[in-house]
């Protein structure tokens, strides 16, 4: 098993700021926009982007929620995926709002398909966009593409892109490409 460092913590920081700026360009003061982190790992990216928007760009009033998609997956009963459901916390309606899904890695696109169905339980959004830190190129199973991407990465099917967050899994923000991952 070998791991290659794709993004250092400085690069991750620059990307977070760039993504935040892109969001502001499109959504201004976020009065009609909500951010939804896709559980389990999109939550951390969503928290960080919200912090950057608040602390560095003065956008204090942002609606942030977390959506768990376990019950909307299309691989239920088909294989050995873990059945751990995480918390969904959306304390507002998304009716007529612009929604930005936030996830760390976009791979096959099936998680986002599940999220698109799941979010309907909370209303009918005006518009839905997707923000990801890592976009794995050429590995989509569905016609789903990000609107905001941090870095595009080419990886084989048996490789894994792992995003580690400071104070959560590691001492620094880092993104690794892992070949032959064993039980990560």
């Amino acid at each position: 098993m070998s791991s290659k460092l794709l993004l250092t913590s400085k690069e991750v920081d620059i990307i977070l700021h760039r993504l935040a700026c892109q969001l502001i360009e499109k959504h201004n003061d976020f009065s009609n926009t909500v951010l939804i982190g896709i559980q389990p790992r999109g939550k951390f990216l969503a928290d960080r982007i919200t912090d950057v928007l608040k602390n560095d760009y003065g956008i204090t009033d942002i609606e942030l929620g977390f959506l768990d998609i376990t019950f909307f997956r299309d691989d239920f009963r088909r294989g050995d995926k873990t059945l751990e459901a995480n918390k969904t916390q959306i304390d507002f309606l998304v009716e007529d709002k612009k929604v930005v899904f936030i996830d760390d890695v976009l791979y096959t696109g099936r998680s986002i398909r599940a999220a698109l169905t799941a979010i309907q339980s909370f209303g009918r959004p005006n518009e839905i966009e997707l923000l990801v830190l890592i976009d794995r190129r050429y590995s989509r199973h569905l016609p789903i593409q990000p609107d905001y991407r941090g870095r595009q990465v080419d990886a084989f099917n048996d490789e894994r892109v792992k995003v580690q967050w400071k104070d959560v899994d590691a001492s620094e923000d880092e993104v690794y490409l892992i070949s032959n991952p064993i039980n990560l």
Partner: protein
Amino acid sequence: MKELSVNHLLGIKYITKNDIDLIFETADQFKEVINRPIKKVPSLQHITIANIFFENSTRTKLSFELAQKRLSADVMSFSAAQSSVKKGETLIDTVNNILSMKVDMVVMRHSDPGAAHFLSRNVKASIVNAGDGAHEHPTQALLDSFSIRERLGEVGGKKVVIVGDVLHSRVALSNIFALQMQGAEVMVCGPKTLIPRYITELGVKYEPNLRKALEWCDVANMLRVQNERLDVNYFPSTREYAQQYGVDKALLDSLNKEIIIMHPGPINRGVEITSDVADSQQSVILDQVENGVAVRMAVIYLLASKIK
């Protein structure tokens, strides 16, 4: 991988503590789902479930049906009164007929203890025991523990007294197993005629005096007097039962701490508990009903995930 250690839910004594934890974690998420504007998830849209109730039930039947429909399963309900059982069909034949319509899961309530067990060995479907005679009622025990966990943070270390007709109660037995598995201390309280003779062999205390039992406990689970199962006179009169073993507000307020009141339903108001106790802040009876749907969704979801 997190999954249940069993393919059927026949009783609490066949599952493990890890199973209980997994069911509760999943039920936490389903509780959030049933409080959303749109209370459905599509997970079980390819699954057909048959609810077969040979004994009367409103609450459990509705709760199971609601749980199944919220999971988007196809549901067929069958109750003994309007059925071929009246024409003398055996249990296995009834169920096999239903199964040949390709049903994936069966939820059954039957008056014979072991009926669900028997079914699991003879038919090809996932079986959920919704009550078999006076033996077990596992989903009730799970929702009771879930409600305690919700109110008190955890079940381990808590003191729970089960009050009333323990002799005829499948709710009591399943609860005893579940509570002990989670590290709670259990006591039973009731007239000696309604307490099984060797109940203490299960590691359970017995206290005939209601006030002492309530002073000891953190949670009181009040059982219904099951008139339909009383073949002889187990106590002189309902009034005397209510005086000795019924809980009213005065008794509740006179205790040295605030305890939680539970009841599996339906309540005989004025017998096991009075209306002001049933409707008080200390009662979690309506939470039990809401939690029942979430817990049953979790059980059905986790069992269905094992059907390949």
